Structure formats: C-alpha cells, structure tokens
C-alpha cells in the first residue's frame, strides 16, 4: 500500500505584529489563506478540506473558534478539522492536513494556523489556577528556565551562547519582511545587557507576543504538476508525545524529540542530518533552545550543540543555517509558530524565501515543540518528489 506524495504549492503569512487591531480574527486568518491561494494560483473552489490549528482557546477567549471561522475560510460545505497539540500545533496541523492528501481522502487541502494574542492575554491564559495541579504561574519562561540552566550545567556551556543565538535570529529577521521584530539597531552588547527575566534567560533572548497567521496549500502529485511555482515535496513527517513530568524525563533532551527526529530521518532516507539537511527552521522560543535542539535533533553530539552555535555554523552564511527567517525569537503568534517553521522550510526548498533564501537549499527541516517539552512535530521537505 503506497501513500500519495504530498506537495506544498502555496504559502501565505501575515505581517506579524504585536496587535492587529485593524482586523478581526476572521480577517487575520483570511489574509494568510488568500496569500497561500494566490501563491498556488488556486481559488477557494479548488480546496477540498480545511485543517486549522491554534494553541489554547483561552488565548483569544473564543471556544472552538473554527466554528465561527468556517465562513471566513471558505469551509462551508467542506470538511473542517481543528487540531490542538499545544505549542507544536502549527506543525501537527500541517501533518494532519498532509494525512488527508497522503491517504487520498482529499486531493487539495488548505491548512492554516493562527494566534491573535492581542485579543486576550496569553500569560493569563497559561496560568489559570486549577486545584491540586502545579501552576506554571510565570508563563512559559518560568517553566523552561530551569531546563536551560540544567543544559548549561550538563554541558559546561559558557554564559554567552544564548545571546549569540538571539542576536543572530534578530539579525536574520531584518531580511524577512513578515517578521514581527525588526530591531535595526540591535547589537550583541544590547542583548547581553538586557534585563534578566527568568535567570538565565534575558529579555532579548525571549520570543515576542505576536498576532499572525500562516497558511499552506497541500496537494497531490497531479496538483503539483499544475502548480505555477516549484513545489516543496514532503519526504517525512512525524509526531511524538511523552508525559509532562515524571521521574525518568529528560527535560534537556526529551526522548520524544529524539524519536520524532529519528522517524522523520528514516522516512526521508537521511543518515547524516548535519550534512544532508541544508536549512533548519527550529522552534526556538528562548535562545538557549538552539544548542539544546541541535543535540536533540541529531545535528550535534550530546554536549556539543553550543560549540556548533558558537562557531557560527548555524548563521545564515554557515554550513547549517538555523532559522534564516528569524525564527520564533523574532515572531511568535503561538499557534502559528510551528506552521511558520514548516512553511519557512518549504519556502527554502522552493527557492522562494526572498532575502533570507539559503543558496542551493534542497532539503530542509521544519520543527515544532510544545507543552512541557513533550509534544513534537517535524517534517522534512525537498525540492524533488520522494522516490516511489
């Protein structure tokens, strides 16, 4: 039994910003969807199904908003699925949509993820007090800071690595017209001297809160043949989950992430990711997660990730560019952030990433994670169809 190959033929995103007060939630998602359709030179009538994702409903204060968004997304009369897998949701949503094409249930699917954080308060949305459960209280940063500290202790990484990542990603974002943060006057020294929020994470090493949406059109082989621009072909995709907290959990390098990467590489026939992958869009909401995930994803040996970052390998002109788009550190509409990673990976292999294009990128990894580092979703896309 063979699966239908899946191609990305349309990508659209909004200009991400702190507050899009000029549009409703419906207006925001429609903007990204229309851009994806335009990129594919398709109309709403060409779409067989819609798969939408976002992080918790409390972030906007709307319960199951896909019901209200059906009209804006041209879903009336069509199947519509709503995915929610915490921070990894943007990636998971794309994978669920790809499954509809791969199983030949539908031929062309619109997938979209969004967050309009200005409608509510994400910190509050994450911190609702529940009896008998450990509260996160200080939002995501308070939860992840101890894991960063654990990484530093375990590997002996020097203090300044996180600042290098933040500075790199924010400089990369200047080449991406859709990125939220465009800090033209940022210097490495400014990152290093920014206020400490959750030791060891400084203000300039954290992601912003963004309003934004990202959409993709996925289609089958016949659909790819008709596409006006080169498609990105999916060579592998996987999700893995593990429990939030338990005695055996490795919070620095969760096994679910390692297993997920191994599955995707196996599907894509990749044996040496460091050499075979040309660009990486990695979910790095706090700067230290770049070296941590470099190890988790098999690009560096255990304890060696920070050396790769320090040596400049992950720079936009390096051997293994990580987050040429500016990444989550520059743009974070939470529910859409994972799909942005998947979409930016696809843009790279389509040769349509504009000023942040990596020359000759033929194979790219999109990566997302969520919850207490427990949900992972990834895909590998390439500029040629998979064998068979």
């Amino acid at each position, binding site marked *: 039994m*063979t699966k239908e190959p899946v191609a990305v033929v349309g990508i659209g995103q909004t200009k991400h910003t702190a507050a899009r007060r000029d549009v409703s939630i419906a207006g925001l998602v429609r903007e990204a969807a229309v851009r994806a359709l335009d990129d594919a030179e398709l109309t709403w009538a060409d779409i067989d199904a819609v798969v939408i994702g976002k992080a918790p409903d409390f972030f906007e204060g709307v319960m199951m908003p896909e019901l209200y968004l059906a009209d804006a997304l041209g879903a009336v009369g069509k199947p*519509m*699925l709503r995915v929610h897998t915490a921070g990894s949701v943007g990636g998971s949503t794309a994978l669920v949509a790809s499954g509809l094409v*791969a199983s*030949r249930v539908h031929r062309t699917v619109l997938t979209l993820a969004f967050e309009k954080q200005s409608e509510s308060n994400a910190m509050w949305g994450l911190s*609702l007090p529940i009896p008998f459960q450990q509260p996160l209280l200080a939002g995501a940063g308070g939860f992840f800071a101890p894991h960063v500290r654990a990484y530093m202790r375990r590997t002996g990484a020097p203090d300044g690595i996180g600042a290098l990542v933040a500075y790199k990603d924010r400089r990369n974002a200047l080449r991406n017209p859709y990125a939220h943060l465009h800090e033209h006057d940022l210097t490495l020294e400014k990152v290093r001297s920014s206020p400490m929020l959750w030791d060891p994470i400084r203000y300039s090493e954290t992601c912003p809160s963004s309003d934004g949406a990202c959409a993709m059109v996925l289609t089958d082989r016949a659909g790819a043949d008709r596409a006006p621009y080169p498609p990105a072909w999916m060579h592998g995709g996987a*999700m893995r989950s593990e*429990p939030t907290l338990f005695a055996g959990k490795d919070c620095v390098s969760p096994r679910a992430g390692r297993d997920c990467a191994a599955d995707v590489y196996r599907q894509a026939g990749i044996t040496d990711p460091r050499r075979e992958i040309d660009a990486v869009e990695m979910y790095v909401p706090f700067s230290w997660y770049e070296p941590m995930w470099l190890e988790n994803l098999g690009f560096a040996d255990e304890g060696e990730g920070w050396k790769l970052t320090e040596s400049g390998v992950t720079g936009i002109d390096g051997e293994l560019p990580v987050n040429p788009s500016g990444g989550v550190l520059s743009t974070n509409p939470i529910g859409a952030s994972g799909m942005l990673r998947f979409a930016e990976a696809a843009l790279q292999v389509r040769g349509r990433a504009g000023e942040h294009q990596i020359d000759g990128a033929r194979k790219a990894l999109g990566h997302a994670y969520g919850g207490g580092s427990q949900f992972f979703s990834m895909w590998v896309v390439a500029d040629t169809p998979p064998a068979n």
Partner: protein
Amino acid sequence: MREVAIVAFGQSHHRRDSAEVSEVEMLMPVLHQVLDAVGLRAGEIDFTCSGSSDYLAGRAFSFTMALDGVGAWPPISESHVEMDGAWALYEAWTRLLTGEADTALVYSYGKSSPGDLREVLTRQLDPYYVAPLWPDSVSLAALQAQALLDAEDAEDTGADERALAAVAARSRTAAEDNPHAQVTGSPPPETLLDDPYLVRPLRRHDCPPVGDGAAAVVLAAGDTARRLCRRPAWIRGMDHRTEAHSLGVRDLTRSPSTRLAAERAGAFEAPADLAELHAPFTSQELILRRELGLGEGVRVNPSGGALAANPMMAAGLIRLGEAAAAIHRGAADRALAHATSGPCLQQNLVAVLEGDVL
C-alpha cells in the same frame, strides 16, 4: 481503500456531576476497558488521537493531563483535536488509511459539571457580534425547533410538539437497556406534553441532560482487526461537513452538511438497519431523519442517544461506538453513525459501518 474497523468500544457511566474524580480519573477505566478488550497496551498502539475542550476543563492544555494518564512512555505517536472525539476518530482513520499505522486508540471526555454549560457554550459563537449577547445553547436550539414547527412543510415532516415528545419518550425508554445512560425511562408522549416549556417550544425532555463522561474506541486495519475482534465493524465510508456559522444565512430546518456527508460516506448506497444519531434536541432528530432518508424500518438510537446522555466532546464518539458495538454483538449488519458539533447542527459527521456476513 484500506479496510479499517472499530474493534473495541468503551464508555463511562455518564453522570450529572463527577466532582470527586478528575477528568483523567474519569477517563482511565474507559481506556483500560478498550485496551483490555483487544489485549493491547498503550505502547503497542501505533497512533493515538483524542478530543476534548479546554473551555470545559477551565484550563489551557487540559489534554496534557489525559496524556499523562495514557502513559505515553516510551513516547507515542499522538495527536489531539479540540473537537468531539468523533473527529479524533476521523483523523485516526485517515492515518490508518495511509498505511502508517495498523492500530489506533481514540478517546474523548468532557466534564460539564464545573460550570454552567449553557453559558459556557455561548463562547463558541462569533466573538464580536453574537457571543456578547450570550444566547445560550438551549435558546438557539429552541429557535431551530420553532422554525421546524413553523415551516411550510411541517405537515410533511410530521413536525409538531407531539412528535417531539414521542422522540423523547422513545429515546429515554430505550435508554432503560443502557447501563451507561444518565436519564432513563419516560411517561408516554401525551403526559410529557403537560410539562411546562423550558424555552418555547422546547420542554425539559426535548433537551439533553447535562453530564460528565468519557468514551474510547480502538481502530484496526485489515487482518489486525480480524485478529483483535470476532466481528469487526468495518468503516465503509466516513465524511464530515461544515455549514456557515451565522444562523441568519442558514435554513435551520435543513441540514445540508449531514446530507452531503452521508452521500460522501456512501450512506445511500444500501439501506441501514440501525442509526445512532447525535441529536441533542428532539427537533434535531426529525431534521436528521429527513436528511438521512431514514424510514420506519431503521432502529434509531436504541442506546437512548444524546437525549439520555450527552457528555460534551464524547457524545459523538459514543454514537460511533454504540453503532460499532451493535455490529460486534451481531445486533446490526449495516449501521449509520452521526456526530454533530456547533450551534444548531453546524458541523456534522456521518460514518457507515458494516459487519461481515456471519
């Protein structure tokens, strides 16, 4: 298309209030029940998918706690929809169709008791123009019911208040044989009509009970299904469709999304002998019967349906499970299962299940 079947089904005893157990504690026995039925452990399942709602739980990422209960170690391939579990089953079904998985565990759960469900559900509505008015779910269903009673073709559909009461009486009488049901037994329709209106034209018995509950199924493909279950309930087709959200642009007396989903699922290709319809309000059963072309020969909701137990996020999955269970025990050969979501039947899913000829 690859052969995929529901091979096990379990559900909780649905109750008005389950304050003494957490969502996870409510779900766990059901998970164990279906896994025991097929002799598998969580780690031996290829794909897991769940459905639930943060708004019912009152906290973000509420599904993460359930995942801890599943025991996702070593890590599992897993996904979640913020929808009724029927749609989680749909996602799992497509995953099995690709051949990437041979087995799937699907579960869903919801506790309505901590809040006022009618008010909570208003937060599902258009947040700018409708939700601020707080129109509650029963009032919206009453609007739909009144439209049905007032429709020019009401005589053809037989939609009058007595017909609504008859649906309630039949459902709750049938539920006497369902140990999981929350509301069982009913006086005859004539007596029900003496009750006062809750929201005109709906009386209390025209509305679903508010309750807490959980459900789970196991899916399996091909020979694996035959190995795990004596008589698998094969999914011959499944489809779901959405309608506009705005009530002003919909004919509330019809359900075109149900009809289209049924057509795509192959429901009209052969007659069914049983139908499990997710019709939380009596009037909605009349609408669904017409769209699905169900004649008198079809047993509708022998479980009692959503009028006997309607745990949010699980009630749709339970319809698929009840239909499958009837096939498992040889009480049906070809069954329709339907799930709905959103105000006034906005979103509808239809599956066609069949058992092998014994």
